[in-house]
């Protein structure tokens, strides 16, 4: 391709800017990853004495023989990790189910639809600490015991559900309802239509909503800080630990979570691309060839018979 000198300069500047952004985005992870192998202190960079001791401490918080630095806090992250995972999983599943039902209801015209739409999204824009306070006061009023399974779960669902709701609305916006009508004309009752047509076609949206729910719940702190009672989620445990003293154990934890997130996002992207191709054809094909009867691309797989 022929480029003018102006275009070339623009490309170089753009490339540098992009590289800078990548560095700003990913350098913290690299530094944190390197520091997680420091044996004693995080004050020296790059770390001198490399070891896996911080990872051992993370997974064996009860083995006091590992904690040999004077004044080192004995923080147990395992309990909060389990609790946060459980809360995030429950939240994402329940919020996704509710969001799907709400979004399906919003396909119909009904009285108060416009107002209700904004009410649904209020949880997204209300400052988190206010929402947490409100939930706490509400729980006190109705004598609901605070804890992760009660007020914690409710707060997290209220927080994450609108995101799933928006995801489903976006997908439903280009969902052709005549395929549901076609299914019912072929003998499928309402439940069968939902199970065999609506839900499979919305599968990418379900996955997106689950991921939203999980990640939003997993790192949620403002709302959780007031409603969890004596239970500790991971973010709250981390905040608590940083107020005492930052040790390489925290970096080990951070590095593992970052690694897990990258794998999750990569998996999702791969899945999403596969789904996109399944519905709209491979990117090289003209998926919109409504009006030509030419033989399209040769079959990828052979005929069934």
């Amino acid at each position, binding site marked *: 391709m022929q480029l003018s000198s102006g275009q070339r300069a623009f490309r170089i500047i753009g490339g540098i800017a992009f590289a800078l952004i990548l560095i700003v985005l990913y350098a913290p992870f690299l530094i944190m990853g390197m520091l997680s192998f420091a044996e004693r202190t995080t004050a020296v960079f790059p770390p001198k004495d490399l070891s896996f001791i911080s990872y051992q401490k993370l997974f064996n918080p009860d083995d006091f023989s590992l904690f040999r630095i004077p004044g080192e806090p004995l923080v147990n992250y395992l309990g909060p990790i389990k609790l946060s995972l459980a809360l995030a999983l429950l939240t994402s599943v329940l919020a996704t189910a509710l969001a799907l039902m709400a979004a399906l209801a919003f396909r119909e015209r009904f009285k108060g639809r416009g107002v209700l739409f904004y009410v649904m999204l209020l949880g997204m824009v209300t400052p988190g600490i206010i929402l947490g306070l409100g939930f706490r006061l509400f729980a006190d009023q109705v004598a609901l015991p605070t804890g992760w399974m009660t007020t914690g779960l409710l707060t997290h669902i209220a927080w994450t559900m609108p995101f799933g709701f928006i995801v489903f609305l976006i997908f439903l916006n280009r969902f*052709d309802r*005549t*395929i549901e*009508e*076609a*299914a*019912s*004309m*072929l*003998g*499928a*009752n309402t439940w*069968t239509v939902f199970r*065999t*047509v609506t839900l*499979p*076609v919305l*599968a990418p949206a379900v996955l997106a909503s689950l991921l939203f729910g999980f990640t939003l719940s997993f790192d949620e702190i403002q709302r959780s800080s007031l409603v969890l009672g004596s239970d500790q989620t991971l973010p709250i445990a981390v905040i608590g630990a940083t107020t005492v003293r930052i040790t390489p154990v925290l970096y080990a934890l951070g590095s593992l979570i970052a690694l897990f997130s990258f794998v999750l996002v990569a998996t999702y992207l791969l899945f999403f691309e596969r789904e996109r191709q*399944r*519905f*709209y*054809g491979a990117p090289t*094909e003209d*998926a919109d*060839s*409504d*009006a*030509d*009867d*030419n033989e*399209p*691309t040769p*079959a*990828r*797989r*052979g*005929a*069934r*018979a």
Partner: protein
Amino acid sequence: MTATATGFLELTGVSKRYNDTVVLKDLDISIGQGEFISLIGPSGSGKTTTLRIIAGLEMPTAGSIAVDGRDITALLPNERGFGMVFQHFALFPHLDVYQNVAYGLKVRGDSKPEIEREVLPMLDRIGLRPLANRKISELSGGQRQRVGIARALIVRPKLLLLDEPTGSLDTKLKLAMQTELKALHEESGLTFIHVTHNQSEALALANRVYVMNDGRIEQQGSPSQVYRYPATRFVADFVGRNNLIDGEIDGAVFRSPLGSFPVGGAGRALPRGACTAVIRADSVQVGPAPEGAAAIQAPLDALEYAGSMVTWFFGGGVMTDVSTDESAGLEPKIGKTYTVWWDPNNVHYLSADGTSSQGG
């Protein structure tokens, strides 16, 4: 094909209102087993709503629907056993061609071998067996619509509803699909109810046509009846290409702003007084008028080319369709005055109150 026995599907007094908007007004439709019915009309005439009410996808506000004498008004679409073909195909994007066609059988609970025994011959019938494992997104428009038809027919429906089945296809494919639909109808012996805004498709396919306008049935009858003897001004305007000339009948003379012409057709029943003459565009001729013809002198205003035909528009509001070859031979010049004539026996008269004469 003259299946005229009615009574298989009966719509009685069917009305539909959305809030304050009346979409269908007290509709009566009676369809016989094995008929090919077309509902035609402009958009907003209520034809699609009528089809959806028959399908059970919409509930009528009033009236009833019966099949074989059994009231089905309250039945859900999945309880009616009708097939439907959609304008935009409405194929399942997450299933392949085979699974799309098999859907109805699977929902019914047929076993895998049973499904295969039905689906494979059906795919052969529509010529898509080699594409059985294709995704829908890999099919062309014509192939998609054939999958849509196969999917509807495989469950052996009591009748087949077709909602603008050629509406998403280009002209060439449209004609091929029409031929295919006609063959399918004759082969299957099923009752077809077909909605279209394309009057030539309706006239080509149906054995009986319902012309709808503004939520009412303007006229029903065989294609040739509707085409040759439109019952109302609306039908005359919508079906075919007609010149509508307002005037009045005075004895054996039709007087109009264009001139006075013999009414023709001795002995036929004619409306009295104010009426509209309906003259088909293809029955108007250019050139020296023979004895007894109705003729006017009119300047040529405009020409419109449409492939094999050229439409000549004359001052005074008369148009005529001339074949392209003939038109070229006549060397038309805009502004030049021509003699335009028609046979008075081919004129159909509508009285001002909407009733028509059955003559000719």
